[in-house]
């Protein structure tokens, strides 16, 4: 079954290309295999991050976000991003632009000073949104060559993919969503329920950079809950959550003097393994927390 031609402007952000390039590589390889074309947005900047930039100065957040949207609009393509933080910023800027005349005028004024403009036409999509709605579960199922049938996954949705729900596309419950679990189960893995499954990883809002101990305590709690449910890995869909769970566990281990070692995989890395890509092609060897226990379970060390 062929799907219509899918092309998107690929928004990278900061963490994905500059700290977890394995996540970027997995998205590029998996999308290419599925026949989805990703075109780079040359000269895109930080989204910019809501935690520090929006917290400091609304107008700076708005102007930089609008510039990133304008670059994609010039390419005539909708944006796809694989980071919940970037998704939140770009989508909120887009909504503000369309719903608030005062904001739209500000955007026009700022962008005109760098010789650009934004018309509000470009759509902002998440990697999971493209896979769930545009590619579809059926086609994903067909792409799976090696079902991960022994894997028990603790899905971590993250916050900004779900909330604020009035500015999100999911036709799903915001308290107990299912779409990410469905995407994970397409790979043959089992998606578990665990305590506080829908809770924040702790990184957002500038808490990781500003008050690290508080951020890490949330991470610790989530990892322990996933462990208690018998999970083989945490599956996420956000480069910042990914960093918080992977790098974060090394920090938690150091602080508490006991090892935390839950493998952390981004959704397209998991899907990629099921599609037959090697762990190295998915960049999984670059994680700080070893994914070997998970690979043993899959049988592809």
């Amino acid at each position: 079954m062929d799907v219509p031609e899918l092309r998107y402007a690929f928004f990278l952000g900061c963490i994905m290309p500059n700290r977890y390039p394995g996540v970027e590589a997995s998205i590029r390889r998996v999308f290419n295999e599925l026949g989805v074309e990703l075109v780079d947005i040359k000269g895109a900047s930080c989204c910019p991050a809501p935690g520090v930039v929006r917290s400091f100065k609304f107008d700076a957040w708005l102007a930089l976000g609008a510039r990133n949207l304008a670059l994609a609009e010039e390419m005539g393509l909708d944006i796809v991003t694989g980071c919940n933080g970037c998704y939140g910023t770009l989508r909120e800027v887009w909504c503000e632009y369309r719903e608030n005349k005062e904001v739209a005028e500000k955007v026009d004024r700022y962008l005109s000073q760098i010789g650009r403009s934004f018309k509000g036409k470009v759509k902002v999509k998440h990697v999971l949104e493209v896979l769930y709605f545009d590619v579809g579960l059926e086609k994903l199922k067909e792409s799976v060559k090696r079902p991960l049938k022994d894997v028990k996954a603790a899905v971590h949705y993250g916050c900004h993919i779900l909330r604020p729900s009035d500015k999100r596309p999911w036709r799903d419950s915001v308290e107990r969503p299912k779409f990410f679990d469905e995407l994970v189960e397409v790979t043959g893995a089992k998606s578990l329920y665990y305590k506080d499954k829908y809770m924040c990883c702790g990184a957002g809002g500038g808490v990781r950079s500003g008050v690290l101990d508080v951020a890490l305590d949330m991470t610790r709690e989530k990892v322990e809950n996933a462990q208690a449910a018998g999970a083989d890995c945490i599956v996420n869909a956000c480069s910042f959550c990914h960093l918080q769970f992977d790098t974060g566990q090394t920090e938690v281990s150091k602080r508490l003097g006991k090892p935390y070692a839950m493998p952390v995989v981004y959704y397209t890395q998991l899907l990629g393994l099921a599609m037959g890509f090697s762990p190295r092609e998915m960049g999984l060897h670059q994680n700080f927390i070893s994914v070997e226990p998970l690979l043993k379970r899959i049988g592809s060390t």
Partner: protein
Amino acid sequence: MTSAASLVVKKPITLEELPHELKVAGIEKCIQCGTCTGSCPSGRRTAYRTRVVIRKALLGLREDLLKSQDLWLCTTCYTCYERCPKKIKTVEAIMALRNMAAERGLMLARHKEIAKYLVGFGHLVPINDPNKKRRAELGLSEIPPTVHSYPEALEEVKKLLEITGFTKLVE
């Protein structure tokens, strides 16, 4: 830390005196039910209480509030925003209060430090040597095709940060 005495004010502000952004967030509708606090993953492990932040903002105790680290404990998870029975835009209110704090130079030192990366590189988290190697190993370009690869794009970003007043805030 909030003591009961610190919440007693001789003359609370009037609705007209409430800053525009807080009015837009609708905080005057707050009935102090505490759903926000009960939903807060940060408040679960610290003394941060979202309900108190909203109450203090309504009473006009803004200096006290703006100086507190509490304001920076919100992860912007939006759980309270979703659950507020009065549909108050809690996260927007906290963001507006943070903007007021930043305007007075009351940001956390580490935040100011990383904000400078944005001004210098167009990324809050810029590329470094280990990650250039990691990219190359995966068959990706060593430098990503972002502002990092396009000096003229970085100039645009710097200009926007300048004219919106961000650069001045973090100097």
